[in-house]
């Protein structure tokens, strides 16, 4: 009896404590989302800047135009390429680095952890400048390395076939440090006793990795998979500073297309429609990942 009467008071107090956070989320998160959803059903464009009465509600016209816009499909394809090639590669590199650093035989762990994590906290604009030098087809370090191996230089950022690969390489290098730290945390949570038992039973290292490490890292995998997919679907800054979407739209991402439509041409309604399509895609991919993880748990 006493607890049930006390609850409303507690709940009220809890809401009071949450109020600042909730109002900030409402004001800066939910309100803009609602506004941009509304925007995606209107033809808000450059003329609306001159006079707000120039805005018309256009229903699904923006979405219809989107489906007919070849650039949208190019951007969608590029974004999927980036997510489904870059995402797993980033996690793979991160897991490899984490296993190396977690190994008992590794030396100077702190130093390497810092070195591997440093790119993640480096400003992308600075990174982009350095990578432009590295990628230079004649004078870049990478071209010289390939030359020493007898491989013809690759014009990483100028060739439509290679530009996305160049951007993916940069993103892996820049982002794997974060996933690596989380993998290390996940690895150190696995009880040592399990490994000891497995070794006593004569399991090979591959069996130990496959049957103990990977299953027990599943929650980390799920978290990183979702976070990486969300982050990579929105990739924007890399092509913006490195290639501005070129060559021949080979690195045009959904985020960049949205930016160009919204801020270069001021087609805000159209840009809002792009952002909602992107939102739905991210939502669907995240749900699929959660569903996949849930089935494995059951």
């Amino acid at each position, binding site marked *: 009896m006493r607890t049930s009467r006390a609850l409303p008071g507690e709940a009220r107090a809890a809401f009071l404590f949450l109020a600042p956070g909730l109002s900030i989320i409402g004001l800066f998160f939910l309100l803009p989302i609602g506004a941009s959803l509304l925007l995606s059903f209107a*033809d808000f*464009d*450059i*003329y609306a*800047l*001159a006079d707000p009465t*120039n805005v*018309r509600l256009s229903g699904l016209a923006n979405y219809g*135009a989107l489906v007919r816009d*070849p650039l949208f499909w190019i951007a969608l394809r590029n974004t999927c390429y980036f997510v489904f090639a870059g995402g797993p590669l980033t996690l793979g590199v991160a897991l490899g680095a984490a296993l190396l650093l977690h190994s008992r035989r590794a030396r100077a762990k702190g130093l390497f952890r810092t070195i591997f994590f440093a790119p993640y906290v480096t400003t992308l604009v600075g990174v982009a400048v350095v990578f432009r030098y590295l990628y230079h*087809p004649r004078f870049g370090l990478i071209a010289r390395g390939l030359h020493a191996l007898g491989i013809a230089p690759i*014009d990483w950022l*100028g*060739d*439509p076939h290679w530009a996305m690969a160049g951007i993916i390489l940069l993103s892996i290098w820049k982002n794997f440090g974060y996933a690596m730290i989380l993998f290390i945390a996940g690895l150190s949570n696995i009880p040592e006793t399990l490994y000891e038992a497995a070794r006593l039973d004569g399991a090979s290292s591959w069996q130990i990795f496959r049957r103990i490490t990977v299953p027990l890292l599943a929650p980390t995998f799920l978290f990183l998979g979702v976070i990486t997919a969300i982050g990579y679907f929105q990739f924007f800054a890399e092509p913006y500073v490195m290639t*501005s979407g*070129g*060559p*021949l739209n080979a690195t045009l991402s959904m985020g960049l297309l949205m930016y160009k439509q919204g*801020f*270069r*041409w*001021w087609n805000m309604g159209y840009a809002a429609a792009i952002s909602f399509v992107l939102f739905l895609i991210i939502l669907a991919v995240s749900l699929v990942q959660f569903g996949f993880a849930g089935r494995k748990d059951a």
Partner: protein
Amino acid sequence: MGREGEVARQLVDEFDRANPDLHLAVQQIPWTSAHEKLLTAFVGKSTPDLGQLGNTWIPEFAAIGALEKLDARVAGSRALAAADFFAGIWKGSLYDGAVYGIPWYVDTRVLFYRPDLLARAGFSEPPRSWPDWLEAMHRIQALQGSSGHPILLPTNEWEQVTILGLQQRSGLLSSDGTRGAFGQPSFTAAAAFYVGLFRAGLAPLVSYTQIGNAYQEFARGTIAMWITGPWNLGEFRRRLPPDQQNLWATAPLPAPQASEWPGTSFAGGSSLAVFRASPRAGEAWRVIEFLSQPAVQVRFYALSGDLPARTASWDDSALAADPKARAFRTQLEHVAPMPRVAEWEQIAQKIPEDLEPAIRGREDVGAALAALDRDVDGVLEKRRWML
């Protein structure tokens, strides 16, 4: 913006010294983000007093009411008049018949060519008509064999084919600027000529980023002609060694018929505009008058390499004595601005996109232009509703 921004600083110091009552703050922004930055500034009510605007942006910024009309100030000015500027360039800073900018420097396209290759092909001077031009290209192709192409027309650029359209007197858009007019016979003739150059192997199927070093290719003779702009006067001088400087020359563009020579080119460049929100429009105008003085424009040319918009500035010895700049002087008397609609930049991007299937032989010219008109009509839908 860009290089002009760096150079403007030095000119502005001069203005500050001459006008102790005023102090100018110059903000440099890169070209690649200038357009969105200025639009955002307008929305955020933080536009500068005075700014540089690409001429094709003027209709857009004038349409949204960001710019101050300058007609009264031009009429009352003793320092400058409309007649002081190249006529085609001046038209480029008008919108709905009113003046919204004062041309600062000009941009247009001329023919850069290899005089020695042209001479070996039997042309002692650059071609003046399309048939002669075509003949020259075929002969150069025979000289080059399979090692090169007579002319470079980057497939991602809209300027070249648009200029050919202007030469055929295409208005590009319908007279009220609400629909595309690319399917009209005038533009079709230009597009057919342009596409034909690719189909005949006279122009390589490459976009600008795929070329690598166009200057090297020019020096090697794997490219013999290039329709490009004034910044390449400086680039050719810088990138080719002194003993190769005789391997390039410039000429005004050929015209469809020799009697019409020189053929029209496009009127580009930048203007100086006063923003309407500025409380210091009078002072901003004084800066424009200062920057428009022929002597200051000549200094600006020396610092930046940008060609002055005021005809009197061209009488200066440095410009007058430069034989390679002379083609621009002649060409600038024959330029026309792009359609004065706010959507022009978006339309321009569609031109190479929609023509690409045609130059690659996957579609005929008529179908490509029909697709272009459809796309352009889509871009202009709002404008039709507004009018």
